């Protein structure tokens, strides 16, 4: 039989006693005083998870603005938007969750502009019936203190150099944030001497914006980008509450 390694066969000391010594040392190190075992007794002790561990999803209802970004990005379509009570008689448009289809990828948390979605550290999610894992919005809500990682809202910003004034963002916007405004003095002269149309640019009313990024998706020329922007005047939640109530009244009528 060919010897396929060029390591030479070593003596009895390394051959027999060294492996035994390694095993014995590990045994002593893990089981006697001062040692730390390599395993934990699971139901009694829990593993320490990292801070950004992706466990069960939670929704902070106070922060949700109903932009549907999470429902659009979910690869498994386990989020769906519905009206639900957010307390004090206010109904809001919020995501409902089918936890049985969730695969913990965390894309919804990443796209959420208002940090209303949060992945908690809970990982024991087993039930006996998979219909038990279907949650309406208020059933998977968590308190705002449990989701501390708030960041500033991203808002659409315009790169004027790319914009052609086509108005696709205006048509895509669900909340009438965008108005197409003609810029005076930009009209070009036609060959017959008359003036052509003036160039249009979108103007944003950030107080109404919910950061849903639909305008960015709709723009055919990559002229818009979502950028975090600290606005002092904006408390978008208040604004949106009004808008949702308005919608609800319309629905009742």
């Amino acid at each position, binding site marked *: 039989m060919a010897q396929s390694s060029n390591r030479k066969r070593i003596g009895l000391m390394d051959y027999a006693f060294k492996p035994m010594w390694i095993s014995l040392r590990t045994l002593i190190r893990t089981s006697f005083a001062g040692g730390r075992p390599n395993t934990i007794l699971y139901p009694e002790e829990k593993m320490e998870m990292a801070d950004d561990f992706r466990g069960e999803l939670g929704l902070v209802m106070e922060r949700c603005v109903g932009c549907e970004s999470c429902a659009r990005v979910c690869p498994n379509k386990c989020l*769906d938007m519905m009206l639900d009570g957010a307390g004090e008689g206010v109904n809001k448009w919020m995501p409902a969750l*089918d936890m049985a289809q969730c695969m913990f990828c965390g894309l919804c948390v990443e796209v959420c502009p208002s940090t209303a979605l949060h992945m908690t550290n809970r990982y024991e999610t087993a039930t006996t019936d*998979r219909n038990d894992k279907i949650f309406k919005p208020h059933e998977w809500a968590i308190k705002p203190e449990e989701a501390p990682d708030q960041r500033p809202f991203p808002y659409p910003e315009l790169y004027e150099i790319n914009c052609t004034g086509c108005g696709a963002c205006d048509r895509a916007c669900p909340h009438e944030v965008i108005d197409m405004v003609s810029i005076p003095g930009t009209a070009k002269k036609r060959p017959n001497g008359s003036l052509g149309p003036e160039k249009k640019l979108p103007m944003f009313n950030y107080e109404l914006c919910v950061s849903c990024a639909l305008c960015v998706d709709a723009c055919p020329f990559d002229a818009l980008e979502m950028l975090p922007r600290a606005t002092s005047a904006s408390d978008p939640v208040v604004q949106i509450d009004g808008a949702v109530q308005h919608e609800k009244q319309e629905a009742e009528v």
Partner: protein
Amino acid sequence: MSTPTIVAAKNENYSELGRTGVRSMETIAGEIKSAFPDIDVRIKTTHRLEANKVPREIFLQFCTYLKEKQGFDHLTCMGGNDLRRSWEVFYHISSYGNRCLIQIRCELPRNDPSVESVSLLWGGANWHERETYDMYGIVFKNHPKLERVLTPEGTDFFPFRKDFKLMDHWKIDWENKGRRPPPQALSSDDNRKFGDADG
């Protein structure tokens, strides 16, 4: 039959493979062009070649030339594609000695999805061609064993064709806590209207 004794291959020394004797892209592309004038070979980036329109008639001849004369000794990948009006097979063949990779695409007519097999040139193409037959129904002539590999035997449809539609996501009854519809079998001769997989 006795246990084989290992005889170290004498003339197989690969220790300098891809380190010395590497020919440049321009040389290879030029030689291919002079041997096959009607095939458009382009250099995409460094180490990447493209021959996007290879006629079906001279496909096997072209592949044999690549292996025997230009040293493309490893078939990285091959696959089929459904272009709706025609079929297509694409090959990515790499050369260890010259450190490059060539992409070959060959279009097949819609009514006759068949092409010569290259699994006798590169043994690595064997299962990839079986898989392409399995998923698209493209027939490889002279293949040693053209059978289904991933789907079970007796499957009567080709699942990756574009006219094979997937079923819709379950519509969940949120108000009444679930009650999903029972799972239904997926078959090609089902008369129900299949939605797109993402609704």
